[in-house]
């Protein structure tokens, strides 16, 4: 009974994680420029990977496997922002201008805080 409950929760987490990965991929296709596409990519790294790891955590019987999954989660928390920052900074250094939403009254055209 408990086993079935854990299995069900685990499947819910896995499906929710997969949904976040798909939404992240969809956002990367849909959003207009490089900088805005970084944000949905973050969905895949954080909730997508996190929920899938939680779901897998409930599937493992052995503590040693659970610890490895937790260590993967910790590594992701350090590496994914570092790589996002590196790509964004490279784009800024290369002179890529951020897209602005003029229809919704975003910022003033052609003006940003970039140096």
């Amino acid at each position, binding site marked *: 009974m408990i086993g079935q409950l854990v299995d069900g929760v685990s499947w819910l987490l896995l499906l929710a994680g997969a949904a976040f990965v798909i939404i992240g991929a969809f956002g990367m296709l*849909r959003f207009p420029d490089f900088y805005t596409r970084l*944000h949905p990519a*973050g*969905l895949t790294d954080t*909730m997508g990977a996190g929920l899938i790891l939680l779901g897998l955590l409930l599937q493992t019987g052995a503590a040693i496997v659970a*610890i*490895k999954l937790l260590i993967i989660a910790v590594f992701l928390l350090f590496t994914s922002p570092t790589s996002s920052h590196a790509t964004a*900074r490279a784009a800024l250094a290369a002179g890529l201008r*951020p897209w602005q939403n003029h229809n*919704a009254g975003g910022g003033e055209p052609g003006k940003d805080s970039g140096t």
Partner: protein
Amino acid sequence: MQDRGAVAGRNNQDGVRLGYRPVVHGIGLCLALAACWLLLSGHFQILLLSLGAASVAFCVWIAMRMDLIDHEGVPMQITWAGLRYVPWLLWEIVKANIDVAQRVLSPSLTITPRMFDALSSQKTDLGQVLYANSITLTPGTVAVDLRPGVIQVHALNDGAAEGILDGEMDRRVAAVEVRQ
């Protein structure tokens, strides 16, 4: 180059202020590596334990040669405060995830991206990096550039930008850094 010099100067002060003790940091690194090795291997035979001890000693020796054993390479001084910060950060990440997912799925494009400078009140480089990584880890905001005291942020919409500008994350990271 002037900035770089200022940062390096700040580093030395950090070292003094945080009570830089190479032996303590070295022992901390040994313990962390040993725990990591035991948890990843799960074997407790004499042969494998001694191989593990040898690899820990080798790694610490390399780290010493590379001059990595200090308050930045082995940030023991923020361990407990850092662990208390993590649950708050994870909850922020969950909220931001749901917001960005809604914007991705909404039929009309509800994003108003902008670039802005956020002030960071952390006193150490480590604290500022922690703050910048927290910003990037939260979907909807990405830290694009880092200067002493200022982080340039790209935000997906006004709400995400205000979430950074209200300064709560800045305060919490500064609290992690100060506490020892």
